[in-house]
């Protein structure tokens, strides 16, 4: 058989040589004959052809072949090695590129790790002026979307596969129509992701076809906030909070450390002043007050937190405004808030008052933040308060942004209804057919009005499947583009890889509309994985368009500047145009007057609060396995959403609690089954929970309900984004669609709901069964008061204060070697070897999962599926233990009451392998598969491991993970099928292989795995060091703080510090010397290399209940 070599395309530059005129002109007859073995004419006669040996064999072969499966043969392709290697590319060595992820809240700068042209891992860009170098879990996990096999791979026509020819055809028609009518009846629906080039091209389209209408829609947005800011601060003024300048922060349901960043890197800025090692540092700490209805990450980090129904937020805002107005003498503010503030109950006022005083005390360094989805009254009052506190300027920066005027989705629906719009061209990342509010009836409208819809997106979501034409979009790692951060820094988006499944970017579609590009050539369609046109960058119109924008931003196309920007990922010196803020305080009272009156809430008629999901946001990440399996930081729920209900309401509704399930009442239970004293339900413990039916008007949702400690009574929180129709293999059957309850656009707090408890149960996969620490001091915290009284409290908690000295004859290998000449001294060599160690600052850690996802991406950790999570087989190497604590002493024989659980405190503790110097796992492994290195790592030899799991039993931190099945190889729904699993589905998908880090083993079933301190990174750093030092004997040591492990790199808060303990300049060494440094389960004498820094809470002693904050920690043993 003749091999068809796939030569790389010849560069089109330089001198060209040709064999014939045909080649020079690329004539059709020449191209046709190019791959042929014999030229035309040199052929057999007809007779010869019929009777030849060859034709005989051909017929015989065909008849044999047709009986078999000859046609199923895999297409053969031959990969040729580079004759001239690509610059910088060394197989197995990573190359880093800077880019940025465009997001509705503004860009996130990213550094992409690539191996042989495959992006494998994302990290924050530490060079970026407004980012600390961390990267949140959504951005981390977005790399998996690039390799999602369920991603949109080809254009579709009403959900059915079609070719690029059809796209070309439709766009030809569309362009014709645009030119003819000037865009009459055509709507462009866009999302919130900022991009200067897209904005520029959009403006050009609108200019060229002036009757085209622009609409904007994102299911989760801050439209209300924008509108209030526009009316109070001025049009186009975007406030960005400098959290590091704030000493006192008051959040009214603003999850700024989670899903609603108020600045480019809120977490990094907030964490800057979050730890105090010495009593005198305590005053430098910032203080956070949070009012919210459910626990968020922000609530968890708060110094004082007040659970309050979401519909009472205007009252709380008013109470605060009244108080601040009174203190600052801002009569306008006080009077605007007076009526609402009067309805606040005594407990709320008592809580608000000292907080307001504290805020005012820190005037100029205090800020109040309102959740982006709270209603206009709250927003307006907060603007007033911030103005009274003098926050504008010192704490809140304002930028003038040019927002293209666009209608809302409601406007679009209205326009379609009135036949003003006939064609919709949708670019938004939202999925209007799925997430549009009920009152718009969007799906029905499109069908009734026979609106032509063209959808452009990475996912073939509901809108895409129902569209007349769906065009696959490129992932942001596949195409040229640009974007800006919240504070307006211009950032470039550069492709890391050719589009894997074809696809075009938004820029390219707009260029087609402008006639600067066409969808061609259509011939490639036949090949299956149809490729959209791709060309060398120099000719790429999208590239040219981005450069044009760059030239505008940079003031001229300076190649040097361009190259620096491509290298750094952003253009230095750019930023938003600062705006001077003058608060139109007279308008506040008008907005406040419109506040909805607080309804009377009961257990059976509570408020329903709709929130974006902590793991899949508005639903766009539903098919992302890493995020889907990442436990919700608060509820620890994976693969589904549920109605979160506070303990008291949960009990009032007659639902069975899981809080004390598994805490049996002893002999009564044992002998008589479920005894009368039993609080918990073992079924609930297994994740089998009862469903409730929520009815609001004619909108009904049946959803499983779980008990949420720290959640306010008579309020139910449901996260959005779940329950989508066939989003892909990961997201199918995941969760329940809460958008169904939403009636109006931007309605996130629903009242008038009716709750019924159903008999039906639903299986949830919750990663943490036990919520209480049971008095064990694995997590330690104290207040600033504790720190002043007892600076070393963290090291003397409970049992740690009286651990007897180790009396073992067998000293083992731990601690620093004392006598370097004594061969019997088995201690660690701190003089000529690196000694790795880690600290985790619990004062900074929020529990956001970023480290966990980063680890998953770096270390090739598979997802295991809902069923396996439910069975307790999550593979995460670094897990987040979330505990709730009440001020009372915690023990196994005490059941906290439902009422206590409303005001419960929440703490988050990341746990990975602690790399014990005296590791219990190592001594018990019969085959020496887990051993200690000279550098203090607890190493795993996967190919030596036989899987006795003894190490997992003997690990006090439960840090070891076992491959119960071939998670990497078997399809997740066929794990139990053994050798009978579908052959074509078995084995890792080619596309998934691309994401794997080549320097980390992909583990097979039957072996234990665990955190390795990213040993591959350490080795790479050591090799690099050896190369630079050559023969020098002194330079063995990797420079201090130069190597970062994946979790550390991802942590925006800077909670994780890692480094060489033998290097005196290491940050980790300094932190280990802190008063707050403690080792978990120290009494076991495992001598872990990972230690924790206790959390310090900056408590305001005047606040009600201040004395009981973090009091539980002192009672632990």
């Amino acid at each position, binding site marked *: 058989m003749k091999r068809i070599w796939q030569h790389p395309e010849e560069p089109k530059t330089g001198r060209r040589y040709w064999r014939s005129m045909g080649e020079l002109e690329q004539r059709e007859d020449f191209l046709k004959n190019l791959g042929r073995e014999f030229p035309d004419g040199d052929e057999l006669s007809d007779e010869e052809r019929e009777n030849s040996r060859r034709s005989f064999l051909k017929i015989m072969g065909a008849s044999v072949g047709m009986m078999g499966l000859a046609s199923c043969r895999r297409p053969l392709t031959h990969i040729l090695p580079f004759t001239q290697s690509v610059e910088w590319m060394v197989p197995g060595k990573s190359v880093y590129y800077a880019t940025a992820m465009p997001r509705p809240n503004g860009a996130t700068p990213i550094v992409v790790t690539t191996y042989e042209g495959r992006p494998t891992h994302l990290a924050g860009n530490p060079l970026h002026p407004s980012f600390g170098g961390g990267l949140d879990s959504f951005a981390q996990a977005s790399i998996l979307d690039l390799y999602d096999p369920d991603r949109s791979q080809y254009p579709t026509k009403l959900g059915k596969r079609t070719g690029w020819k059809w796209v070309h055809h439709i766009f030809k028609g569309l362009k014709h129509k645009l030119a003819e009518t000037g865009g009459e009846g055509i709507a462009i629906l866009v999302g919130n992701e900022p991009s200067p080039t897209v904005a520029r091209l959009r403006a050009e389209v609108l200019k060229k076809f002036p009757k085209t209408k622009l609409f904007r829609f994102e299911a989760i947005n801050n439209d209300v906030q924008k509108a209030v800011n526009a009316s109070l601060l001025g049009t186009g003024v975007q406030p960005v909070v400098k959290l590091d300048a704030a000493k006192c922060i008051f959040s009214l349901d603003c999850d700024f450390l989670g899903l609603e960043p108020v600045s480019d890197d809120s977490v990094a800025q907030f964490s800057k002043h979050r730890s105090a090692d010495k009593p005198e540092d305590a005053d430098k700490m910032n203080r956070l007050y949070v009012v919210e209805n459910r626990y968020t990450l922000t609530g968890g980090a708060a110094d004082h937190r007040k659970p309050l129904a979401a519909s009472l937020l205007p009252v709380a805002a008013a109470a605060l405004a009244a108080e601040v107005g009174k203190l600052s003498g801002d009569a306008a503010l006080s009077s605007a808030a007076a009526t609402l503030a009067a309805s606040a109950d005594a407990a709320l006022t008592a809580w608000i008052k000292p907080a307001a005083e504290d805020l005012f005390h820190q005037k100029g360094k205090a800020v109040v933040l309102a959740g982006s989805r709270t209603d206009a009254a709250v927003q307006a009052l907060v603007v007033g308060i911030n103005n009274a506190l003098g926050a504008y300027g010192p704490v809140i920066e304002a930028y003038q942004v040019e927002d293209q005027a666009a209608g809302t989705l409601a406007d679009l629906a209205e326009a379609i209804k009135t036949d003003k719009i006939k064609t919709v061209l949708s670019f938004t990342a939202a999925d209007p057919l799925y997430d549009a509010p009920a009152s718009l009836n969007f799906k029905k409208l499109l069908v009734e009005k026979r609106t032509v819809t063209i959808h452009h997106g990475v996912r073939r979501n509901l809108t895409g499947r129902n569209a007349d034409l769906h065009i696959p979009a490129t992932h942001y790692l596949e195409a040229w583009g640009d974007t800006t951060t919240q504070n307006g820094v211009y950032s470039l988006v550069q492709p890391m890889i050719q589009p894997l499944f074809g696809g075009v970017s938004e820029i390219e579609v707009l260029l087609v509309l402008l006639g600067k590009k066409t969808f061609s050539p259509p011939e490639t369609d036949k090949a299956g994985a149809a490729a959209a046109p791709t060309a060398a960058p120099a000719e790429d119109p999208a590239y040219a368009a981005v450069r044009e924008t760059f030239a505008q931003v940079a003031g001229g196309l300076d190649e040097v500047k361009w190259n620096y920007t491509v290298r750094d990922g952003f253009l230095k010196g750019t930023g938003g145009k600062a705006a001077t803020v003058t608060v139109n305080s007279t308008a506040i009272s008008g907005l406040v007057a419109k506040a909805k009156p607080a309804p009377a809430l009961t257990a059976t008629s509570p408020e329903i609060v709709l929130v974006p999901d902590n793991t899949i946001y508005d639903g766009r990440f539903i098919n992302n396995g890493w995020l889907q399996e990442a436990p919700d930081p608060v509820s620890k729920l994976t693969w589904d959403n549920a109605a979160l209900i506070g303990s008291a309401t949960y009990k009032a509704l007659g639902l069975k609690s899981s809080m004390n399930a598994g805490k049996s009442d002893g002999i009564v239970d044992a002998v008589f089954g479920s005894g009368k004293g039993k609080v918990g339900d073992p079924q609930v413990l297994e994740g089998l929970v009862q469903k409730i039916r929520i009815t609001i008007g004619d909108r009904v949702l049946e959803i499983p309900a779980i008990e949420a400690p720290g959640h306010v009574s008579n309020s139910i929180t449901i996260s959005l984004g779940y329950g989508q129709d066939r989003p892909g293999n990961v997201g199918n059957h995941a969760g329940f669609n809460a958008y169904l309850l939403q009636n109006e656009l931007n309605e996130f707090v629903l009242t008038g709901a009716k709750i019924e408890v159903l008999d039906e149960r639903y299986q949830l996969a919750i990663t943490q069964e036990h919520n209480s620490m049971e008095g064990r001091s694995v997590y330690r915290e104290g207040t600033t008061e504790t720190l002043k009284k007892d600076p070393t409290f963290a090291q003397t908690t409970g049992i740690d204060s009286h651990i007897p000295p180790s009396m073992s004859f067998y000293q083992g290998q731990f601690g620093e070697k004392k006598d370097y000449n004594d061969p019997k001294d088995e201690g660690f060599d701190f003089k000529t070897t690196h000694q790795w160690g880690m600290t985790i600052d619990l004062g900074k850690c929020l529990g956001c999962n970023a480290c966990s996802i980063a680890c998953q991406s770096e270390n090739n950790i598979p997802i295991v599926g809902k069923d396996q999570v439910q069975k307790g087989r999550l593979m995460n190497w670094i897990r987040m233990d979330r505990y709730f604590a009440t001020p009372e002493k915690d023990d196994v024989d005490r059941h906290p009451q439902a009422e206590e659980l409303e005001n419960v405190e929440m703490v988050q503790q990341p746990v990975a392998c602690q790399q014990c110097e005296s590791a219990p796992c190592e001594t018990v492994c019969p085959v020496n598969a887990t051993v200690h290195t000279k550098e203090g790592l607890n190493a795993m030899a996967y190919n030596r491991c036989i899987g006795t*799991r003894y190490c997992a039993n003997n690990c006090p931190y439960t840090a070891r993970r076992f*491959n*119960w099945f071939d998670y990497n190889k078997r399809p997740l729904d066929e794990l139990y099928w053994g050798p009978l699993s579908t052959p074509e589905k078995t084995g890792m998908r080619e596309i998934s292989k691309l994401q794997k880090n080549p320097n980390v083993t992909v583990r097979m079933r039957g072996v234990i795995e665990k955190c390795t301190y990213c040993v591959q990174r350490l080795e790479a750093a050591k090799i690099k060091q050896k190369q630079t030092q050559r023969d020098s004997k002194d330079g063995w040591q990797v420079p201090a703080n130069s190597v970062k492990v994946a979790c550390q790199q991802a942590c925006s808060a800077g909670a994780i510090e890692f480094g060489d303990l033998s290097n005196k300049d290491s940050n980790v060494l300094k932190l280990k010397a802190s008063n707050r440094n403690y080792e*978990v389960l120290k*009494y076991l004498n495992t001598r872990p290399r990972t230690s924790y820094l206790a959390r310090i809470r900056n408590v305001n002693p005047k606040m009600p209940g201040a004395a009981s904050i973090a009091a539980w920690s002192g009672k632990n043993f």
Partner: protein
Amino acid sequence: MAATDSASHPEPGAYTALDREPLVLNNRSFSWITNRICGIIENKQPFLWWILFIPSVALTGLTAFCFTYLISTGVGVWGQKQPVAWAWDITNFVFWIGIGHAGTLISAILFLTRQRWRTSVNRAAEAMTLFAVMCAGLFPAFHVGRVWMVWFLAPIPNANAIWQNFKSPLLWDVFAVSTYFTVSVIFWYLGLVPDLATLRDRCKPGVKKMLYGMFALGWRGANRHWSHYETAYMLLAALSTPLVLSVHSVVSFDFATSVVPGWHTTIFPPYFVAGAIFGGFAMVLTLMIPVRAIYGLHDLITPKHIDNMSKIILLTGTIVGYAYCMEFFMAYYSANPYELQTFKMRGLYGPSTWAYYWMFFCNVFAPQIFWFRKMRTNLWAVMIVCQFVNAGMWFERYVIIATTLERHLTPGSWRVYTATWVDKMTFLGTFGLFMMLFLLFLRFLPVIAIGEVKAVTPEADPHNGDSHEHGVQENDVMGYEEPASTYPGGVKPAATPA
């Protein structure tokens, strides 16, 4: 039976109070013993044998199926999870290993301490030991994630040049169990040699005779043979004795040397050994009482044997009960709150307290009825208590392994264990394997050591008949006719010369 006033004028056939109860009743002759024991093998098996054998084979197949499924699919087909990485697998292992204790204890320790009553039960008990160890060995071998790499446990040269980790109790286990098994097989086989010769001599020429002959190693019953035999037997008994204690001590080290509260306990080795003897004797009784009834061995396995074994169960059960209480006391006395919480959750507040109460009832309370002689001689009562003990010992291991791991050191990882059908079927299947092997043993090998049991008959006593107090005349014995119903199959075997 005994009457004090008849001491000076004993009736023929009656015993005085000071006399030891005879170990073989009714003054059976040598030939009767040979005929009766060999008859079990030589005659057709009763219908009941087949009723038991066929399901046993089926259950063995079930275990084979379950292990095949496990190996081809992954350990995940069992119910283990984090942090319960061991559950039924190791529970079953320890359970079976425990059962495998009574055999060697009876054959070795009781031999060395001249407990002559052991002769009637030692053969079956040793066989039981071997079969139980076989069942036990399956679990640690197959519970590993990559069973095809299990040879890494053996210290054989390999390309990686990596040695085993001799600090690991799991490796000690491998050595302890394999040594125990090897020595037990040799000990058992050595004891079988004279009996195999008897069977050989009674066979018609053929394959059977050839096989028995081959395994009888040319035994002729010569004085030199007996002399060598007895020396070897004594030496092996001396070798096995420490093994009885070491195996289960080593098994207990799997737990005792760990850092897990509830496992890390110095009481484990003696407690495990006592428990193993306890469970082992219960299993011996469970097997021997039906065998005695089915094959008419009432004169060889007498109420005295059952009584003795019941007493051992009572003693060891009480030791185990003491250990349970002492664990609680130590948890309190150690002032280690982790330890205390573990025990609080085991017995009072944990998710699996039911297992703890079952364990306590079965192992500590149930055997207490053996304080009463009436209960010790009531076979139904003995059988019922033995079943409680068998179950209780399984629960004990479950409590130690699964419920301890369910409540590990970091509460955030706590999870409750639930077994899957594969767990249950695998375990059930090993009972089939055990029964199948035991039934085959009954079918092909003498269930009682013929040579040894003869030594405890009055006939074997050189002073037999010297004392009038022993009363019974040879003639009386010879004249006694056994009812046909006591023979296997209800047919009296044809008399064959011994």
